[in-house]
């Protein structure tokens, strides 16, 4: 199952970043596919990007809401929030575990051998602050004389934007080098911090900062496709605790907003069918999904 997940992550990476003509065009993709929402965080100013980033687009719509209204347009972000909500209500944070390029990047970094640390649970709450403040409130409220705000999260925080757009665009268009200032350096510093943090801790950006992860986490309990805890089968062996990359105790908090539904607990740890995949109320038979070796199990 883990190998399948890695393949799915790779496929999504290339679907969201499928424009490989950029070394010739020296520019970003500008075709009609960009009206499609990227499920994971993927900067639309990345030269290879073929979809729009929901967090970037939402900020752009909110920061120009007054300007749009003055010009007779009713762009409130309903199309973007609708797309995000459809993904959230169907998959929740499955998207983070299976379809986010920046999530994959952090997972690969975490494979680098080093001492590993956990992340204090209190830091998980920060991502909701970033969603509310940097994505919604600040772009909406702080506007200039032209009634335009700023994309606060993109501009001051997003390390995915720096990695996927900031670095490659400056390399592709050397003219941009002249405009580099403290803002660019600030974003580079944030990216470097997350790179080192990802080596020593599992998915720090997803857990503490990602506003898209925060949005999807709101749906984890009510999403259509989710992992179900079958309490009557649980022996409290706690095998699920040790495999979880998000440090969740699945048997204690099965609907945790932090669960990225990687399914490691189900396919690599639980020997008692206490965890199953459920679609709209129907539990899939576990034998379909669990064929690998599990914790504490020896293959004969």
């Amino acid at each position, binding site marked *: 199952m883990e190998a399948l997940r890695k393949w799915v992550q790779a496929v999504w990476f290339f679907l969201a970043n499928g424009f490989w003509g950029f070394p010739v065009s020296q*520019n*970003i993709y*500008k075709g*009609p596919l*960009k*009206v499609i929402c990227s499920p994971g965080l993927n*900067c*639309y*100013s990345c030269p290879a990007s073929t979809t*729009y*980033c929901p967090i*970037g*687009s939402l900020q*752009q*719509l909110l920061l120009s809401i007054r300007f*749009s209204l003055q010009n007779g*347009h*009713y*762009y*409130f*972000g*309903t*199309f*973007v*929030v*609708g*797309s995000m*909500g*459809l993904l*959230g*209500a169907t998959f929740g944070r499955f998207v983070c575990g299976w379809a986010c390029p920046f999530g994959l990047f952090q997972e690969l970094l975490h494979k680098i051998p080093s001492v590993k640390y956990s992340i204090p649970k209190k830091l998980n709450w920060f991502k909701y602050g970033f969603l509310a403040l940097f994505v919604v409130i600040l772009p909406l409220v702080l506007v200039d004389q032209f009634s335009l705000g700023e*994309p606060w999260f*993109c*501009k001051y925080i*997003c390390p995915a*934007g*720096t990695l996927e*757009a900031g670095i490659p*665009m*400056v390399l592709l268009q050397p003219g*941009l080098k002249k*405009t*580099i200032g403290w*803002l*660019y350096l*600030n*974003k*580079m510093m944030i990216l470097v911090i997350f790179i080192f943090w990802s080596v020593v801790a599992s998915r720090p950006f997803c857990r503490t900062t990602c506003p898209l992860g925060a949005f999807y986490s709101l*749906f984890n309990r*009510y999403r*259509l496709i989710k992992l179900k805890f*079958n309490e009557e089968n649980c022996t409290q062996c706690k095998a699920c605790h040790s495999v979880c990359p998000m440090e969740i105790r699945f048997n204690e908090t099965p609907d945790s907003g932090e669960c990225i539904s990687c399914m490691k607990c189900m396919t690599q740890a639980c020997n008692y*069918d206490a965890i*199953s995949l459920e679609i*709209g*109320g*129907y*539990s899939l*038979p*576990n034998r379909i999904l669990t064929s690998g070796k599990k914790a504490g199990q020896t293959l004969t």
Partner: protein
Amino acid sequence: MNGKFKIRKTPLVLISVFLLLWLTGIVLGEPSRVLEQACSICLSCIGIG
């Protein structure tokens, strides 16, 4: 099948609500604005703007 099959209605309600929101956005012409934004380089995202 593991256990009884009892359909969960909340996800279906949520999907319907967001589908409605998505369609409203289309009726208001928002996709063209999203496309326009996504097709121009966001200097802020790069850390320049």
